[in-house]
Every structure is written in structure tokens, then in C-alpha cells.
């Protein structure tokens, strides 16, 4: 009996230790997010030192800055509020959306290799975007500027959504969605989309080919407050559903039947998950093209660090994804300034070796 009491005490201290570790993790991530935003605000073709940020913030909150502010301060304010800040906010939103979506799709498909685009969003969006780049002028008849800012993002969003709805429809029989069917149908659809994109590339001219390539690599270059206002509601919806989804995802990791036995409304969780991810990733892809890597690796790294419990994993994926994208974008717009390096190149360049290093450093194999 006393042995059991001793074991119980050990278990309690182990649980308390895990909790402390999780709290510490949240604290560290919060600091990383804040730090990355500050670094991103201060760096760029026009350097704005941190103390200048402080002065700007104070003058904004005081309200009457017009009288005594120097012309330099006014210029910095312009750069910050019209160029840098919307871009950083967009990066935060997209990073959070990609991180959370990755974790959710991995949970839903019970597969650590699932990424945010697994439910057809990426293939549908890429096909729609390529279609608009190559044939958009003939189909819609709008000029190039309108095409870039409105028509193409809209088409990408709709293309992703339609592909997801199609897969969801195929995989749902008598009110039950089979994630395995969805995964397989998704592979078929992706192959089909790739073939169609290949056809479009085949008939495209050099400029269109370049546009397609750049879109596939992703960029936050076109960020403005208007884009932020479109993306923000969708991402907020996804982030708001995290507490509800986290509990369901924990149970789903034991399989659909076990989750039902535990009282989880399995079909509702699946539907909510797929719809919210399709919306959030859909607008993200429409705003910045496809940005790979974040959605797969961020949740995986966090699982190694703090464990698999979705109640901590989802919010942490949002924070880490946001910080990663803000930093990557800051590098993307400074490293070859005044040009912009596609951010997808950077996320893979930073993340890939880091991930490999992490795997090599461990002295035992990881069981997925």
C-alpha cells in the first residue's frame, strides 16, 4: 500500500513537472513572438532602431505629433504603418493559421506527415491560380493590375474551397466521413491538378511561367491592410475554435470509435476542422501563395518539446508558426534588398537543416 502511495506521489510530481514545462514553453514562445515582431519592425531597407519605435509609439498615443515631430519621424511612421506593419501582421496571421492547420490535419488524418494543404486546398488553389495566370486574361477580360490584386486571389481561394468540398463529398457516406478515403482521393486530385498545371505551363509564355513559379514559392510582398482585413476574420475563427477542437483531437488520436465512446461528436469535429482549415488556409494561399514547411514541421518540433496534448500543442503551433513566418519574412525582404526573396525558399532553407540537426542530435529513433 505504501509502495502504491509512493508511486502516486511520483506520478503527481511528474505531472506537475510537465505542467511547469508547458507553462515555461508558453512564456518562451510569447517572448519569441514579441522579439520577432520588434526585429521585423526595425529591419528593412530603411533601418528604424528600436528607440525610434518607442518614440513613434509615444507620439502616436499622445495624439498631437504633427507639431513637434521631425520629418524623419514622419517618414518612419509612414514606412511602419503602411508597409512594414501590415506585412508583419499578415505574416503573424498566416504563420498562426499554417501552424494550427498543420497540427489539426495531422490529428484528423492520424498521420504526422499531413500538411495544411492535405485536404485538397493547395492543389485546388494552385490550379486556379495557374489558370488565372495563363488564361485569366482571355477568360475574364480584366486588366493585369486587377488580375493580380483581386481576381487571382479570389480564384485561388475558390479553387481551394471547391477542391476541399469535392473531396469531403467523395469521402462522406451516410453522414460519416472517412479520412482514409479523403486522403486517397486527395492524392488522385493532386495528381490531376499537377497534370493540368503542367498543361498550362506547357502553353504558357516566359512571363507567365515566371509568375506561376513565384506564386508557388509564396511571398508576402503584396501585403496591405486590405489583405489583412480579409485574412484576419478567417484566422480568428480558426484560432477561436482551438479549445473545442483540442479536446476532440486528443480523443481522435485513439481512433474514431474510441473518440465516440469518450463522448466526442466525431462527425462535428471532422466537419468543423475541415471547413475552418479550408477557409483559413484558403485565404492564406490567396494572399501569399503557397508557403510550405511551416505546417508540417512546427507541430512536429513542438511535439518533441512539450508532448502531444493538443490543448497546448494548438496554441503553441499558432505562436511558433507566427514567429517563424515573421522572422522568415524579415530575412526575405532584407537579404536581397530592395528585391524580395520568395518566402517559401526561406522557410525551407531555415527549417530543413534545423529539423535534420534535431533528428541527428537525438540518440534514439523517433516513433511517429
Amino acid at each position, binding site marked *: 500500500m505504501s509502495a502504491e502511495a509512493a508511486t502516486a506521489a511520483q506520478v503527481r510530481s511528474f505531472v506537475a513537472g510537465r505542467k511547469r514545462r508547458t507553462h515555461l514553453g508558453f512564456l518562451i514562445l510569447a517572448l519569441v513572438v514579441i522579439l520577432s515582431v520588434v526585429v521585423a519592425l526595425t529591419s528593412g531597407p530603411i533601418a528604424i532602431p528600436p528607440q525610434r519605435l518607442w518614440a513613434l509609439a509615444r507620439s502616436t498615443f499622445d495624439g498631437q505629433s504633427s507639431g513637434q515631430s521631425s520629418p524623419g519621424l514622419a517618414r518612419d511612421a509612414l514606412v511602419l504603418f503602411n508597409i512594414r506593419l501590415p506585412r508583419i501582421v499578415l505574416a503573424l496571421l498566416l504563420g498562426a493559421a499554417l501552424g494550427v492547420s498543420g497540427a489539426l490535419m495531422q490529428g484528423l488524418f492520424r498521420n504526422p506527415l499531413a500538411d495544411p494543404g492535405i485536404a485538397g486546398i493547395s492543389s485546388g488553389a494552385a490550379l486556379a491560380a495557374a489558370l488565372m495566370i495563363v488564361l485569366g486574361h482571355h477568360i475574364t477580360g480584366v486588366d493585369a493590375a486587377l488580375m493580380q490584386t483581386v481576381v487571382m486571389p479570389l480564384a485561388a481561394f475558390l479553387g481551394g474551397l471547391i477542391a476541399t468540398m469535392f473531396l469531403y463529398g467523395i469521402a462522406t457516406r451516410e453522414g460519416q466521413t472517412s479520412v482514409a478515403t479523403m486522403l486517397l482521393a486527395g492524392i488522385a486530385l493532386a495528381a490531376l491538378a499537377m497534370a493540368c498545371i503542367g498543361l498550362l505551363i506547357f502553353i504558357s509564355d516566359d512571363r507567365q511561367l515566371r509568375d506561376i513559379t513565384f506564386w508557388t514559392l509564396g511571398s508576402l510582398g503584396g501585403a496591405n491592410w486590405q489583405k489583412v482585413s480579409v485574412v484576419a476574420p478567417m484566422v480568428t475563427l480558426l484560432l477561436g475554435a482551438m479549445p473545442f477542437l483540442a479536446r476532440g483531437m*486528443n*480523443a481522435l488520436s485513439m481512433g474514431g470509435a474510441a473518440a465516440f465512446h*469518450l*463522448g*466526442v461528436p466525431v462527425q462535428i469535429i471532422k466537419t468543423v476542422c475541415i471547413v475552418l482549415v479550408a477557409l483559413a488556409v484558403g485565404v492564406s494561399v490567396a494572399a501569399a501563395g503557397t508557403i510550405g514547411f511551416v505546417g508540417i514541421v512546427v507541430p512536429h518540433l513542438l511535439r518533441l518539446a512539450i508532448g502531444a*496534448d493538443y490543448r497546448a500543442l494548438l496554441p503553441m503551433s499558432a505562436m511558433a508558426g507566427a514567429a517563424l513566418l515573421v522572422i522568415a519574412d524579415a530575412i526575405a525582404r532584407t537579404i536581397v534588398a530592395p528585391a524580395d526573396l520568395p518566402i517559401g525558399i526561406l522557410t525551407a532553407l531555415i527549417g530543413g537543416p534545423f529539423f535534420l540537426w534535431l533528428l541527428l542530435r537525438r540518440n534514439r529513433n523517433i516513433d*511517429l
Partner: protein
Amino acid sequence: MTALVSARSLSYAIGGKTLVDDVSLDLEAGLLTAILGPNGAGKTTLLRMLTGELKPTIGSVRMGDETLHTIPAWRLATRRAVMTQATSVTFPFTCYEVVRIAMQSPRRKAASASAMDDTVVEAMAVADVLHLADRFYHTLSGGEQQRVQFARAVCQLKSSAQFGMPQVLYLDEPTSNLDLRHQLMLIAAARTLATAGLAVCAILHDVNLACSHVDRIVMMKSGRAVASGRPAAIVDRSTVRNVFDVDILVCEPPPAGTPYVLPFTQRPG
């Protein structure tokens, strides 16, 4: 005595094949019921209908005064827990987390965190898995995983005891991977739960384990319930011969009145 769960003429057919054929069954509070039968007899399909996972093709299951499939999942989960044959868990969850998931379904009223931790520890002690709390579930042996799942099911019921509803525990071959000591431990734990007022229903393969520990046996063959009653009343040479196609000797070691079978030869053809 009124039945907690009452199944009337359940049939389940899929793809033109009838897996369960006209089975009726009552589960009563305080009783341990075992379902016995050869592979493919429809035991698991029957259990899946009783748990609400499958809707019977014909017939219905009532729980209390409600029809089972009209009870929403979250409310059902406060009244019955299920331990399935083998449960794999994706991603590195610790055993402690696996057991605690039992208390996380949406809409469950949140008890205080420390009270929840107490319930988890209590359930893990019942299944003798406290020492595995910090281990990753997917690294355990099959038997250890089974015990963790048993703890998870117990935790689910203990944490919903506050609602004061009568509860049912379903176990699908709970002892299939367990060593001798833990087989007896699990059956004893199930007995303790039954004594506390639960109805327990388990699919078992060990006829002797069933004979010596359960209150009632339902024998299934080819989707039909061919015999049901107290072990001493139904476990005899002809029934076992009919159900399992094996010849047995029924022995009676002490305690007297408990049948004990020794399978010794497969019946030809």
C-alpha cells in the same frame, strides 16, 4: 430486477451477410456478464451495437427508459465506457495523458484540475499502471497498453459518477494479452465495479476464467445466442461441443459447484 441495458431481437447485416441474428440480452446492475463464442460468432458486432457504435439493422437497444441511438454521444459517455480489443494511439502521448483523455470530451462539466488528477491516479492504480504514467503509450507492450486502456475506461466512469446515473462497462477481450496475474487482477477489478453497482459485460475467450468469475454467460455461434444463464447451468459437454466444436471434460475442482473444463481434442470435421 430491472435491466440497465436491454437489447431486443438485435440483428445486424452488412453486404448480404448477417453477422448478428436475433439476439436478445439484458445487462443488470451488479452483474458480470460474459459473451463467449468462437471467432467470427458476432460477439464484437453485438458489443458494438450495445455500445451505440453500430445501429442494429433490426431490433433496438434501450438504456434505462431511452432508446440508445437517441442519446447524444456526450451524454452516453457519462453512462457507459468501452474498452476495445486493441487501441493504437497516434503521436507520443504519455500513459497519464491517455487516461486523462477520458475526462476531456467537449461539454463535460469541468471539475477542478486537482480533482481530475486524483481520479486519473485512482483509475491507474486500479489497473496497476501507475508506474507507467510517464512512459509513452506507443512504446508499451500489448498487455500494458490493454491495462492503460482499462484504466482509461475506469477513469471515464469514475469521473462521471457525480451524475448519479447507473453505468455500464463494456470490455472486448480485455485479458487477451495479459499475463496470469493481471488477468485475475482485471477480472477482480471488474467484479469490484459490479459490486459497486455497475453492469459489466465482457467478451472472453477463456471459458474457465468466465466460469469461475462471472455471473452469467451468453454463448454465441454464427451470430445467434445459443445459450445463456449461470455458468453452472449452461457450461456442459454438449453446449461447449456445439458452440466451440471441441470435446471437453467438465471437471469440478474446489470450490464445488464451479465447472472447470479441460479442452483435449478438436472435434473432427
